[in-house]
């Protein structure tokens, strides 16, 4: 399709045409200024070349109207670039509602992906065309970065944080992804391929894929028992810690009176730094699990807690903020 020396990568996501349009806009403005200034300099260079050794240039010192012009005009153009860029950026950052969520974990020097039904892949990612895909990114060690040039998407994968990114693939095919944040020795080979498939092919692939032994909810439930979470977080609300039924996505009332939404990041923090946010009415008894659970295990626990969304919330001992008694 593309020439031997293409100027831009393939356009394979909802963002790509917008980003390339913006690129063309800024390039045009910059090319205009670059050419205008270069031509002026080259013209003056030859036109006013000193032919007589004692010659002196014309003595003028400046012009306020000119100064104002070449401050205000570039400022207006710069604000146009800023605004267009801001609009696209907000689009990148505003997650759509109906996403297909895939967990991506970076570690030196490989990528582990987990599909919603638990199927795992390494350095490969299969997604259906036309669906909004949301990637939840976590790192086991240093900072990595998930970069798909054909989608024009990129997001750092930062240890201690969950970062989110989304895109909608628009064209079936196989596309390179790279680690784009330097992460040590094999940084350059920490990449792989995104395979964009027709929805029916994707469904068939999901059904036939191997390596899906552990459904994350099942794995999380097992961990919940193994790590003795269950001894305090009793489902009916009678334990020393709040019941987790219905907590995912709901508002939680904290001891200091503030409220926080129980999302992935909150759950992760509560596992690793339990003292950071204490639920109202409870003591800070929980030990930290820092260093005792991997990012993958945290994701499994989160998946399990998410699955408790549909479980009946006990009237007492739930930790959910009373006003937000949804579900």
């Amino acid at each position: 399709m593309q020439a031997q020396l293409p100027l831009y990568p393939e356009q394979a996501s909802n963002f790509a045409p917008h980003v390339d349009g913006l690129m063309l806009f800024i390039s045009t403005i910059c090319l205009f200024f670059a050419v205008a200034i270069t031509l002026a300099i080259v013209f003056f260079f030859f036109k006013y070349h000193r032919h007589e050794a004692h010659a002196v240039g014309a003595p003028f010192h400046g012009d306020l109207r000119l100064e104002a012009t070449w401050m205000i005009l570039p400022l207006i153009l710069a604000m146009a670039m800023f605004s267009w860029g801001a609009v696209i950026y907000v689009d990148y950052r505003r997650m759509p509602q109906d996403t297909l969520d895939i967990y991506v974990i970076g570690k030196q020097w490989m990528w582990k992906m987990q599909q919603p039904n638990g199927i795992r892949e390494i350095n490969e990612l299969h997604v259906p065309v036309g669906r909004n895909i949301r990637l939840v990114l976590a790192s086991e060690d240093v900072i990595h970065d998930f970069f798909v040039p054909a989608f024009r998407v990129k997001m750092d994968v930062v240890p201690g944080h969950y970062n989110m990114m989304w895109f909608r693939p628009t064209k079936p095919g196989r596309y390179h992804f790279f680690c784009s944040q330097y992460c040590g020795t094999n940084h350059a080979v920490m990449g792989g391929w995104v395979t964009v498939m027709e929805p029916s092919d994707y469904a068939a692939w999901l059904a036939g894929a191997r390596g899906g032994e552990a459904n994350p909810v099942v794995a999380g439930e097992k961990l919940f028992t193994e790590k003795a979470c269950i001894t305090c977080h009793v489902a009916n609300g009678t334990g020393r810690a709040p019941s987790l039924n219905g907590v995912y996505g709901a508002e939680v009332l904290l001891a200091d009176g503030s409220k926080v939404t129980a999302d992935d990041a909150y759950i992760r923090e509560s596992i690793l730094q339990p003292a950071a946010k204490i639920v109202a009415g409870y003591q800070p008894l929980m030990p930290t699990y820092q260093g005792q659970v991997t990012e993958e295990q945290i994701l499994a626990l989160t998946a399990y807690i998410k699955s408790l969304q549909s479980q009946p919330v006990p009237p007492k001992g739930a930790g959910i903020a009373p006003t937000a008694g949804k579900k």
Partner: protein
Amino acid sequence: MSEPFLPPQHKEPHEDYLNATYGIRSWLLTTDHKRIALLYLVSVTFFFFVGGIFATMIRIHLLTPSGALVTPETYNKLFTMHGVAMIFFFLIPSIPAVLGNFLIPLMIGAKDLAFPKINLLSWYIYIIGGCFVLYSFGTGGLDTGWTFYTPLSSIYSNSAVTPAVIGIFINGFSSILTGLNFIVTIHTMRAPGMTWFRLPLFVWAHYATSLVMILGTPVVAITLLLAGLERMFHLGFFNPALGGDPILFQHLFWFYSHPAVYIMILPSMGVVSEIIPTLARKPIFGYSFIAGSSIAIAVVGFLVWAHHMFVTGESTYAALTFSFLSYLVAIPSAVKVFNWTATLYKGSISWDTPMLYALGFIGLFLIGGLTGLFLACLGLDIHIHDTYFVIAHFHYIMVGGAVMGYLGGLHFWWPKITNKLYPESLSRLAAVILFIGFNLTFFPQFILGYLGMPRRYHTYPPEFQVLNVLSTAGASILALGYLLPMAYFAWCMRYGKTAGMNPWPATGLEWKAPSPPPTENFLVTPEVNWEPYDFHSRPDLGLAAGAPLAPAHGDD
């Protein structure tokens, strides 16, 4: 001209800073700002060579997709050490510590900097810092990237990170002391009649640079120290497993390291603001706008750091703010370019070598600055962040801009520093070679970046090879361009023609001192009663008045 050459002491009977005293002690214990400038000249040239060798190996390695030369470990060390040597030990000190040191007292009519001993101390601090860094290079090398991002640098890297961060920490004080020295000198030691708005724009640029050095450098010094402490003693500042935050490191690091770009480029802009009016024999267009834009760049430059972090997951509001402020800082840079161009209009433009460097600077800085607009753009930065687009952009600014300015300045003031003239045709040729070689090296990298080649890759998909080969070809031309000036500068020290006091001629005070200047700079304290770059009311220059011209630089 076929003058018989004579050793310098026969030709210049007066005592100058070079022949005032002899012996290694007289150099290592000197407090003369001109000698300290030459000490810096030798030291930064050494680090430029070190960094340049690493760069050469990088470009050779990238000739083939699988990597032609070294192992992944070594490649990672090469680009890290290239960055550390070039940024902290060449680019940041280059113009301020060499040309600024030599010229600021001369330009304002002072005998020396305000604190001559501190000036010498800052060179020793630089050397000690440099030794730590060379020790790190020699004992296992450094593989963190020059940005030292945590927790890679503080926990995971197995290379010699600790001596390197100690070296950069120490070296920071050299920068701080130089900045302090410049600011005090400019405030307190101006000659009678040298008002603020008669200062050469080179001095304004260095004033702005010194502000950044004093306010920014402590932050990076402490940040790297914290990373070192986390590495040595497992204190949790940046490592999330110890309760730290790796993003905090990036905020602190870029709080200095973005303004550091202005430490590199502002002095170059100062050089260009001297060369253009002098060689166009014309007052600079918009003096106060160029002076003011230097200060504006220094101030606003402190408020844009988080534009390096648009893809770290920082809040959307922070990203919007920093993108907006980054666009603002583009305006004063644009103002300078427009004013330089306007200065050429109806000038009497000489084609001497410094002019070629100055115009080369404008051309390359133009591309570097304009591509900054792409990176400041939130919607575009997501795609091009951490790709070769960024590599190309900052090399256009820091090598295309800063180094062209540095070499232009050396060519412009070499007659003052040494009283020697370098070969004209060869030096013009070198400027043209540098310009062509530079563009061939780095322009293909913009395209590579947009196509999606990430930076710091020792191996890459084969579709990127053609552009990489072009880039390496350009680099070999560029290398020739850098070697030529070193060769003919050394050659002309012995064989060059005598330059005389004011060969261009120029209006600045430094050209009223003998060449080379005596230790005390001026035989009598000068008094300034003229405006800067005013060629019309200066009969002493022998120009419009028709008086015979001093032996100029072979101008036709």
